[in-house]
């Protein structure tokens, strides 16, 4: 579980900043109150688990607390919070039930569409930004590394040449 220490948090801020300067995403229509409710929390949890599902080797994004870390981070980043809330609302307004109530294949279809949509619109920017942050948070946990050829951080042991030469 990441504690969003100051250095890691600064890295997330850089990622968010890079996405906002990467094009003119339109956040101007966000006039409505932007306090997340249960529906937004459920949407984000399902969204990050669609990005990173549980399998036989490692847990899902929510198993590793990724969604909770994202909400924590959003409290100090107004632009990110706005995009996060707008994206979650959009997920819940695709014409059917809220995103978290969709069948898995329907959730996959929605996220696949987002991944191909216009870079300058909310769904695409939400997808790219949340994907980047979720992957960073997820793979920061040792429990996500099952199935990888590394099991420990680089130090203090390193990789002695006998292990690779």
């Amino acid at each position, binding site marked *: 579980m*990441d504690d969003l220490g100051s*250095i*890691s948090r*600064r*890295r997330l801020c*850089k990622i968010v900043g890079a996405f906002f300067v*990467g*094009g003119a995403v339109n956040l101007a229509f966000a006039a409505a109150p932007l306090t997340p409710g249960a529906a937004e929390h459920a949407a984000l949890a399902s969204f990050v688990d*669609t*990005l*990173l*599902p549980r*399998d036989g*080797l*490692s847990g899902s994004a929510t198993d590793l607390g990724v969604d909770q870390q994202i909400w924590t981070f959003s409290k100090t980043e107004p632009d990110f919070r706005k995009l996060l809330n707008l994206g979650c609302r959009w997920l819940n307004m695709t014409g059917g039930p809220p995103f978290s109530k969709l069948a898995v294949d329907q959730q*996959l279809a929605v*996220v696949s569409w987002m*991944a191909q949509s216009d*870079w300058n619109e909310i769904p695409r920017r939400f997808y*790219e930004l949340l*994907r*980047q942050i979720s*992957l*960073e948070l997820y*793979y*920061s*946990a*040792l429990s*996500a*590394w099952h*199935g*990888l*050829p*590394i099991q420990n*951080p*680089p*130090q*203090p*042991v*390193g*990789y*002695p*040449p006998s*292990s*690779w*030469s």
Partner: protein
Amino acid sequence: MTDKRFDAIIVGAGAGGAAAAWRLCEQGLAVLLLEAGPRFDPARDYKLNQPDWERHQFPEPRGSRGTFTLGQFDRLDPADSDLRSWNSSIGPTVRSETRQAMGPGYWHVQGVGGSTLHFVGESHRMHPAAMKLRSEHGTGQDWPLGYADLEPYYALCETQIGVAGPESQGDRWRSTAYPLPAHPLSPSARLLAAAGQKLGMTWQANSRAALSAIYDGRPACNYCGNCSRGCPLGDKGSVDVTFIRKALATGRLTLCPGSPLARIHSQASGRIDYVEYVVGRKVHRVETPRLILAAGAVQTPRLLLANRSRSFPDGLANASRQVGRNFMESLSWNSAGIVPGLTNSHAGLPSDAICWDFNRPDAIAGTIGGCRFNSSTQEIGFTGPISYATRLFDGFGQGLKDKVRSSFGSAVSVGAIGEFLPNEGTYIDLDPGERDRLGLPVARIHSSLGPDNIKRLRFMAEKSRQLLKAAGVEQLLEEFGAWDNFSATHVFGTCRMGADSKTSVVDATCRSHDHANLYITDASVFPSSGGGESPSLTIEALATRAADAIVHGKVLPPSRPPT
């Protein structure tokens, strides 16, 4: 503090300041070393023993980066879009029509150890011919000294650092062997070397400021592959564990971190008589018989330009009007992909293999100025799962998790760094709209690539792609370079050295033409950037040579090439 008398004051505890401090102290001089930034504690500040280490670049506590602003960068010509930066995960990484700063743009560390704290640790000598661009190729500038003049100081500094290198490096002849044998090549480096052979390229072990065996009380490298995030072992030859440690051991060095310079005072005669620095809110004034500036190619010209006076209306050391001009930045390229079947490419020493074939100034057809290629797999971060997931693959879901698992350890990247020829659009000046907390104007960086540099960059990109193809990469997955990114790590040239006081700032011993007791020992004195050589060793060689000139009034005699 201010009651103590010093033989010299040095500003900046990076490569040049530290090496000068050591050489002066070991020869009996009392030195005050002022450093604007903090002193780092590797055990506390470096995070390589944490599961989230990939999210931690080199630490950036308050004061650990100098203040600067950026001027307008080049508009990107679509005709050069083959040089665009991109990756498979998010597509183009620069989506604007002008060149953009990557991160801060100027990557450096302000602190005890300077940028050697986050450098990978390449330890390079300049190519002899790269120091004669003007006389032999009609462009750029000559150095006022030659390779033979620097050679004894290269050897001296390599011994202090414990450089590990190969038996021979071609034109870079040596008077002595490297102190330590070269490091074993990592899996990705071996692959690149074999691929290079298919293309007729000669790859060899890189010379590295990282210990291949226990040396001088420091441990050997354990090949974790993450030098640039800060080495917690102390085997990397950053100057905090080499020159500064040795200078402190003499008992003659007074080291003051967190002490930015506020003022340099010169008498009308040109003699520097005192400086003022700030600790907290208190201003300290200290007299000095000699001042050595070693704050780097951005901050050193800024300090000189900002300390203008009635006697020196254009700033200090600037009768030539060359202070701040001739800025040279990092012309770099990286291409990466996956080689099916390769394992453990995350392990080993970063930049452990190098190809110098195109390093001579005339080695690239159609342009003057060379380049080098190196293994960059670990250097650019393919050492953990976050980089694989966020840079090499698009998509999501089970497919993405499976790709990360199946490919981890099989990424390969080749990097290239080339000569940067200065032009009218590359310079440092003072930003009229920005001042630091001490009230001094901040440096503003202007850089423009120009057609020569773009031509060289294209050669670097095309050769990198050929190399990866020969290595077995079926599809490139990431490329980034200097065409659309301003991402300078090596910066040079803003107080260049030369024999003529009308066209240069310092002489061949790094002494100001205008102030007899002012020296500059950082990369701002480089008349040319070299063909991709990393600069720290040359900075250290120049700094120790300047220290000898201060102490003895003369320097070591030139070495003779072996017959």
